[in-house]
């Protein structure tokens, strides 16, 4: 339990980052490379921060009701989804790297706006966001259910009609339209779903980190979430989940290993200084070289499933 308490912050952060990786994966399901997740994450966070400090603000000394956080998450999710639709309609006229650039611009616009608006606290941000839990580990009570919901949602989505339309558009947009799929609305839907998930996560994160300012949701975060998806694997939802969890943990574990005391002094210094980030960067680069499809691929999952149940089918299906 002491260990859980010590690592409470990290565990919640891992789940939050896995959620954000999923939010980037959703538009990608329909082939749209969007880096807008940090923008919607920041947007959702501001909604929660403003609601909880101004509208639902508890009397002095009173704890903040968990139900209100859930309500904020819902509001933030719906608002971010709606903003996602508004952004998607013009942005999805672009595709590939140009869409990625446009979504980075969107993140940057939101950042500059929140730096200047009084309601978002300008450069100072919003601080003293009320806490519903006694410890940071308590946030798992909200983070884990949201994570499970998101995972089940995306897993189901991949197997039903709408998800198939996404998959078809990603595989070959032209062939998809020749199959009668109205590609435009489906791309907007995928984009908005990602936005809603990022916004919901942001609302939770605002309480979790206690202060919210324009340093939340920046270009750096765009690239980090993209790394989660690419290193984890971009062809099944399991990839971003694994990527988000593992890549959040690795730098902290490297930091932790420096404190064990069994390492030579120079290595300890290296790890607790900038060295662990250098190692992290090298791992990312090596990962992309040896796992160009990401750590988790649909083929890997199929192999794992077959290994457990029907080995005789494996032979038949492995044939080209």
């Amino acid at each position, binding site marked *: 339990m002491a260990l859980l308490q010590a690592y409470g912050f990290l565990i919640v952060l891992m789940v939050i980052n896995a959620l954000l990786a999923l939010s980037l994966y959703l538009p990608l399901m329909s082939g749209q490379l969007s880096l807008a997740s940090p923008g919607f994450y920041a947007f959702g966070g501001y909604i929660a921060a403003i609601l909880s400090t101004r509208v639902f603000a508890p009397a002095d000394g009173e704890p903040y009701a968990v139900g209100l956080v859930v309500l904020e998450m819902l509001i933030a999710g719906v608002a971010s989804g709606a903003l996602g639709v508004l952004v998607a309609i013009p942005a999805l006229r672009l595709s590939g790297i140009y869409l990625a650039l446009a979504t980075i611009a969107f993140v940057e616009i939101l950042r500059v706006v929140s730096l200047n608006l009084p309601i978002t606290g300008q450069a100072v941000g919003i601080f003293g966001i009320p806490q519903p839990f006694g410890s940071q580990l308590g946030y798992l009570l909200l983070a884990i259910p949201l994570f499970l919901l998101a995972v089940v*949602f995306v897993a*189901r*989505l991949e197997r*039903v*009609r*709408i*998800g*198939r*339309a996404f*998959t*078809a558009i990603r*595989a*070959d947009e*032209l*062939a*998809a*339209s*020749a*199959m*009668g*799929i*109205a*590609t435009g609305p489906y791309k907007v*839907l995928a984009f908005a779903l990602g936005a809603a998930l990022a916004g919901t996560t942001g609302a939770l994160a605002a309480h979790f980190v206690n202060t919210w300012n324009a340093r939340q949701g920046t270009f750096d975060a765009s690239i980090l979430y993209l790394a989660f998806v690419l290193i984890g694997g971009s*062809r099944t939802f399991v990839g971003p989940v694994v990527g988000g969890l593992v890549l959040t943990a690795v730098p902290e574990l490297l930091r932790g290993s420096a404190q064990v005391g069994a390492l030579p002094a120079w290595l300890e210094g290296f790890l607790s200084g900038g060295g662990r980030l250098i190692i992290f960067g090298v791992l990312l680069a090596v990962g992309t070289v040896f796992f160009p499809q990401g750590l988790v691929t*649909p083929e890997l999952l199929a192999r794992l499933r077959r290994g457990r149940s029907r080995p005789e089918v494996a032979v038949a*299906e492995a*044939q*080209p």
Partner: protein
Amino acid sequence: MTAPPAAPTLEVRGLTRRFGGLVAVDDVSFAVQEGEIFGLIGPNGAGKTTLFNLVTGLTPPSAGALLHRGDDITGSPPHVVAQRGIARTFQNIRLFTNLSALGNVMIGRHIHTRSGLLPGVLGFPSSRAEEEAVRERALELLDLVGLRDRAQVRAGSFPYGDQRRLEIARALALEPRVLLLDEPAAGLNTNEKAGLSRFVRELRDRFDLTVLLIEHHVPLVMGLCDRIAVLEFGRLIAVGDPAAVRSDPAVVEAYLGEET
């Protein structure tokens, strides 16, 4: 007074497409009647595939009109054309290569299914029933093209001929009234080519289809098609039944002459 003849299934009027200075399809007009197998031939670069792209909405025309059963559908986007019951295959095969054969055909059922986001994700009974029906129908179509036993195999790993058949199964999943086949015999061996003629006729009869097909292999076209249109440099130089087209001097000079 006699009743006016029914509107042709598909009619193109003065259809033109320019790419910069190149006129890929130049003022082409013809009508395809219900139930016909209509061939489109011509030398490489004659504009056959561009014409298919115009008919299916993938490329908007520069001029001219496209009518489906008398309705003007000029400039309709591809998904609207597909929803009207006009399905196609592609010359360079455009399967969803990472999906299974079954997955490919199931996507073809899109326009005949309704499941929304939440009913699908939450697994409502109506949605589950629809999903089951889609799977069953897709398996039937795979059976029809002889690929049912490999339903779960990745489409991209199929041999060329099987990919062509899978693409036809996927197009049939749309329950089209008009089927456009872009070089269905390309890459098939002699045996498969012979089978293809039989197969296309069978499909026409079984599904009440009107078939348009582009084909390079002249004996196959002559034996299979009710009527044939010949394109050269984007212009229509002849249209008629196989015998008439075969003896047309312009056609012989432009195309057939080189073959014999």
